[in-house]
Every structure is written in structure tokens, then in C-alpha cells.
């Protein structure tokens, strides 16, 4: 089990009902972690439409997670 810092933005923040959480998870990758969170919060967004940031840098979905990693899922951006 890993301790992961999660940060939520935009509709994910609304759906999770929080902006941050620390979570214990058996998920080996960000992809597996997102699947776990979809079960928990019912996230609507497909991962194919999103990117993932680990420790504030874009990372591959299948990058192995490490103890204490900060993970943020990035919905389609709409700034500008």
C-alpha cells in the first residue's frame, strides 16, 4: 500500500467533493488509481480525454507510483 497525495480540479473536484486528500491505495500506477477513484466518486471523464501529473509534472498513465507521490488528474483544459 502507498500513501498518495491527491489534488482535484474542475469537475473532478465537484464530483469528489474535495480539492485534496491523502489516500492509501494498492494501485501500482496512475491509471489503476483513477479506476479506483471512479468507483469511489463516479468520475464521468474517460481517462483517454485526460492527462495525469505526478509531482507537478506531466507523466505517463502507466508510470509506477511511489510512496508520497502527489497525483493530479488533468481534465481537458479550458483556460485562455
Amino acid at each position, binding site marked *: 500500500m502507498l500513501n498518495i497525495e491527491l489534488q482535484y480540479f*474542475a469537475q473532478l473536484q465537484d464530483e469528489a467533493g474535495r480539492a485534496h486528500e491523502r489516500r492509501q491505495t494498492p494501485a501500482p500506477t496512475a491509471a489503476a488509481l483513477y479506476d479506483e477513484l471512479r468507483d469511489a466518486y463516479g468520475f464521468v471523464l474517460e481517462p483517454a480525454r485526460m492527462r495525469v*501529473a505526478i509531482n507537478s509534472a506531466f507523466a505517463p498513465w502507466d508510470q509506477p507510483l511511489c510512496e508520497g507521490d502527489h497525483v493530479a488528474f488533468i481534465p481537458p483544459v479550458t483556460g*485562455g
Partner: protein
Amino acid sequence: MNDFIMAETPVDISALRKVLLFPEAGGFCSFEGWVRQTNEGRAVSGIDYNAFVPLALTEGQAILQEAKQRFAICRATAIHRTGYLSIGETAVWIGVSAAHRDAAFDACRYIIDEIKQRVPIWKNEHYASGETGWVPCHTL
């Protein structure tokens, strides 16, 4: 120094513009994104900008660096707001100076297009009806 700035409050644009003045610069192009009163036919009262600031800063700075490599510019600066903005407020400002206007226009356009596609910022529109909604994706 980071030329890409995330700001929680309005920024003095004339001060940012001065940083772009170089003796060899003959052209200056700037773009501003303003909060519009309608989007997709719905009346908007304002937009709340949510951002992942640390990643927005590195991604924004990467875009400015790319612009500098691709186009013959002197310097480029950009600023994006966070928080609640009313109609007519400036959400994003980009300024580019260059020896000639081709590079200034092209780099400025490149920067706004890339910001809209890559920088982790999200618009939560507040409608005149009282509802709010996350803009699903860029329509332009």
C-alpha cells in the same frame, strides 16, 4: 526569471509591456482574452478560473521557450488570471516583441493557441440564471 505569470489579482499591463522594449525591437504584438457576456448562447455573468498553478507555471514557461526557439522574437511574456472575473476583465495577456512584425504576430498566436490547449486552467462559468458549469472543452 519566469516570464509566465499566474496572478490572483489584476496585473498592471503597462509594466509588463515595458519589459519587452528592446532597442532592436521594431514590432510588438499583444493578445488579451476578455470575459464575454455570452458563451454557446448562454448569458454569462462571470467566470471563475481554477488552475493547477505549479504545473501551469512550468507548462506556460515551456510554451514561451518554444516560441522563442521557433520565431525570431526578442522576448515574450504572458500572464493568466485565477479566481472570479467579471465581464470585460482580462483573463489572459500575452505580449511579444520582435525585430519584425511577422515573428511578433506568429509567436503571439502560437502562445495563445498552446496556452488554450496545454496549460492546466479550467473555466467555471457563472450564468445569469444563477447556475454554474465547467466549460467542457474549447469550441474554437
